[in-house]
């Protein structure tokens, strides 16, 4: 790990100002990914700005009947907050599908969105990686790529975004609140992460010096027909090979509104408006769900180790849609798949 100077920020303005002044400065909150990467010498910031004392640790009602989750609210606090649990159970479920109780007690809402890929090569400075050192190449495309992306990849990078929480937030059409040197702005969660393209080193649209202040959940009614289905290499404490967040609003037997996002398959939580539109106004049926799955995966590209994810993702989508439509969401403690 490299040396760095440390500043405990006392206001958002101070944090932003200090960060903007130093191109290698980084904010730190839960630290569960940044410290991890610093120990591997993947991240080497020379200045850390501790934002944990900023007043961003509350969950509040927002205008329009939604909830605003402060960026410093921990994963644990968010998952077990009665308002989130009752009104956005999909989010609770997705959070509890991830990491461990210990990590969820440290990791924050803002940090979760900013966690970096688990690509083996990105994590290993002994190997080339375009995300870590642009221009060095991507050994994953011809190497071990079991955990890698099948959608939205580029020849320069096939990494995935590892978050579970962000997948649910994408489905719930959350909005990210950002403060920066030029003031505040908001952006849809689905537009927050980017695809690797020619610049895999850039994960999100966040500019240097900008800070996530909150994630806002719009008023929705997906508390009955939802699920978060996560498939992985062991029954807990592992990153998703494929995960599916589904939120439906049913009117009788009819799907009035549908949201679906995939995790573990792309550089960002993966949504497909076309597929969601296919569901609207229809009733739950295997054939429909299979067409939706096929639509979402139509441009998927597999590599040597991860081609199975295409089929797995289709199957997971179908099952998750059934779980959501029938109001039997996946339990995160009973490992039998519903």
């Amino acid at each position: 790990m490299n040396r760095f100077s440390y500043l405990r920020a006392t206001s958002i303005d101070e944090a932003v100002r200090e960060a903007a002044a130093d191109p290698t400065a980084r904010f730190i909150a839960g630290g569960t990914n940044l410290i991890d990467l610093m120990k591997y010498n993947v991240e080497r910031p020379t200045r850390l700005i501790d934002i944990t004392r900023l007043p961003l640790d509350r969950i509040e009602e927002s205008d329009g009947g939604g909830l605003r989750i402060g960026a410093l609210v921990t994963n644990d606090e968010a998952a077990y907050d009665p308002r989130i649990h009752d009104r956005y159970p999909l989010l609770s479920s997705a959070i509890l599908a991830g990491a461990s109780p210990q990590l969820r007690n440290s990791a924050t809402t803002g940090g979760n969105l900013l966690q970096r890929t688990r690509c083996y090569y990105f994590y290993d400075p002994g190997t080339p990686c375009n995300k870590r050192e642009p221009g060095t190449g991507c050994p994953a495309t011809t190497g071990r790529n079991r955990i890698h992306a099948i959608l939205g990849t580029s020849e320069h990078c096939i990494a995935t975004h590892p978050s579970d929480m962000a997948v649910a937030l994408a489905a719930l059409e959350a909005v990210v609140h950002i403060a920066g040197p030029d003031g505040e702005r908001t952006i849809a969660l689905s537009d927050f992460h980017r695809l690797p393209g020619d610049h895999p080193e850039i994960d999100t649209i966040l500019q240097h010096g900008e800070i996530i202040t909150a994630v806002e959940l719009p008023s929705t009614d997906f508390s009955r027909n939802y699920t978060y289905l996560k498939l992985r290499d062991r029954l807990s404490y592992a990153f998703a090979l494929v995960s599916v967040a589904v939120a439906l609003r049913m009117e009788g037997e009819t799907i009035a509104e549908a949201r679906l996002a995939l995790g573990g398959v792309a550089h960002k939580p993966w949504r497909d408006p076309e597929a969601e539109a296919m569901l609207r106004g229809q009733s739950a049926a295997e054939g429909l769900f299979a067409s939706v799955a096929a639509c979402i995966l139509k441009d998927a590209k597999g590599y040597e180790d991860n081609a199975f994810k295409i089929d797995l993702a289709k199957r997971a989508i179908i099952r998750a849609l059934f779980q959501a439509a029938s109001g039997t969401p996946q339990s995160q403690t009973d490992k039998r798949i519903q």
Partner: protein
Amino acid sequence: MQQPNAYIGTPQNRVDGRAKVTGGAKYAAEFEAPDLAFGIVVSSAIAKGRIKSIDTSAALAVPGVLQVFTHENRPRTAWLDRNFRDETAPPGSPFRPLYDDKVIYSGQPVALVVAEEFELAAHAASLVRVEYETEPHMTDLDLKRSEAYVPPKKRSGVKPPPSPRGDAEGVFAQAPVKVHAEYRVAIEHHNPMETHASTVVYEDDGTLTIHDKTQGAQNSQSYVASVFGLSSSQVRVVSPYIGGAFGSGLRPQYQLFLAVMAALELKRSVRVVLTRDQMFTFGFRPLTIQTISLGANPDGKLLSIMHDATQTTSTFEDYQEVVVNWSNLLYHCDNVKLTYKLAQVDTYTPTDMRAPGAALGVAAIETAMDELAYATGIDPVELRLRNYAEMDEADKKSFTSKELRACYQLGAERFGWEKRNPEPRSMRDGRELVGWGMASGVWEAIMQKTAARAVLTQDGNLEVASATMDIGTGTYTILTQIAAETLGLPMTSVATKIGDSSLPKSPVQGGSWTAASAGSAVQNACLSVREQIFKYARQMESSPLANASIEQVTFAEGRIHLTNDPSASVTFAEAMQAGGVERIEAEEKASPGMLTSMRYSGYSHSAVFAEVKVDEELGVIRVTRIVTAVAAGTILNPKTARSQILGGVVFGLGMALEEESMLDHNLGRFMNHNLAEYHVPVNADVYDIDVIFVSEHEEMLNPLGIKGLGEIGVVGTAAAIGNAIFHATGKRIREYPITIDKLLG
């Protein structure tokens, strides 16, 4: 009523339990020393080539950095590679850290940065710049398989396959029923929870006290003495607690070399702790490709067994383990051909990992036997009974004891096997397919020459000591039980000292031999003390025992009394006072009986029954129930013994479903070198495990009848799970681990 101090065979809590639950137990990286310096290892990025240059200037410029050791400034050590051999080394030239500019595997240590503090060393290590000249490497066994060879020099303690018997090929060709398939088990790394570490305390007189993560204090001691040209009196290894090892601590690992080198050169104490990633830069269970051909009659009787295994080794040592011999040990057959070959790849040398060889070989033969059960339409348990080996046919020896039949029977009963519908895909629980599978397990009952000392003092306290280890197996506890019962003392009056090279001689802890070996040695030492104290007791003035022989008395609660008249007794203190001694000390050895081993074969056995529930569409497998019935002679402590088996089963579950060290052959490097991506089972993976110890009378191997338990729990578990998956799904997957992709594929 139970006789007082009759501890052998009774469940006892671990005597080191309190130390372990309070944080008091000290592991290798936790010993203090004045002026302790910290070393961090820099690992090579390439698999093969040479170091063109290594720039340590930035690291050395960090205030607090003491030295950066590389091949260029390495202090002179032993020259000959045989000095680097240890008691478990396979034939070949052991790896010599920082020896020269050659890189022979990815992750090889290329520098050691030593600084005043851990954080400084870690920072400085990130500043070391290494330039390599790469050479082509090869890590892919499939591409090297054609060059596989029979190891020309046998590894000590590892039986090569026996010579062929009968005409296995000819009979197979004509056999009415045939099974022929290839089986693979992925590379696994031991990954004990404690990473490898050595704290080398540089004493005022220049001698070294070393706290090493090792399975053999004396193995580490003799390695250090040999490599650095020290006398054994200059090196003492003290390792009372080991945070798991599973074989990774059998050989002295490179952190020991580096820490000692730095301590001697800097003349101060040095600690080197490997990172979790660096736990993937030495030994592992090698990739093994096995081919099995079984020829049988329609009634399931085996006519021919052919079992071939090819594993990887390094370019510098011929690692060997017993992979194929188990097939004929489990099953009677007159036409048998067992073959075993190695192929060299550019990795480190593999290292024994829990049930080395057997975990692999039995996984294959027991999967093949399940295939034969389906090919013949015979119940898998019945098929095994029809082919039951009544003797060790390869060596033409009888078994010292073998209760495998009872294992099958009791395991099947407890599991409810008779309710099994043999048809694949026939059992369901809601959406999930249910599968019931079984397999046999076998492991050799080994004993190694071991010494122990017992010291009884007048205050009624007994200390027993041997240089053996407790890597989590329960050695402290069982030795305490044996000593207490032998001398008739409460366990609380017995202190067991192990894990120290200055104690009586012991081999490494491994191969499930510690209980039999150290246990027998402790028993002998205590018997010797018994005889001496009895002598004093008889010689006492007006001794009530004056006319008794040792067979007529009982030792209990610190007294000796006539067995048929407990009121006629002498306390240990009285006897010792009368004899004018304050302490009685005895050192004794225990060795395997030569006559027994010439005429008999000793093995432990098991029958493992597994239930899986499979969500077939999504490839999700849950191992909901395991029953394992184990016959392993005397069970000294059913509580810790059960834990040994539970742990073995969980290890086997990892092999069956999760564990795989993924090599990138382009880079020649393991890529999932951490615990997030190398998956070992977590709590949620493990449902109910039921352990049955089958009563087995064993009297030939050693007086206590111990066979050992460290390995047998692993053996057979993966196959039982794989067979259950076949029963559930109708899908035969011959490559472990059975992951989602393979089940969907």
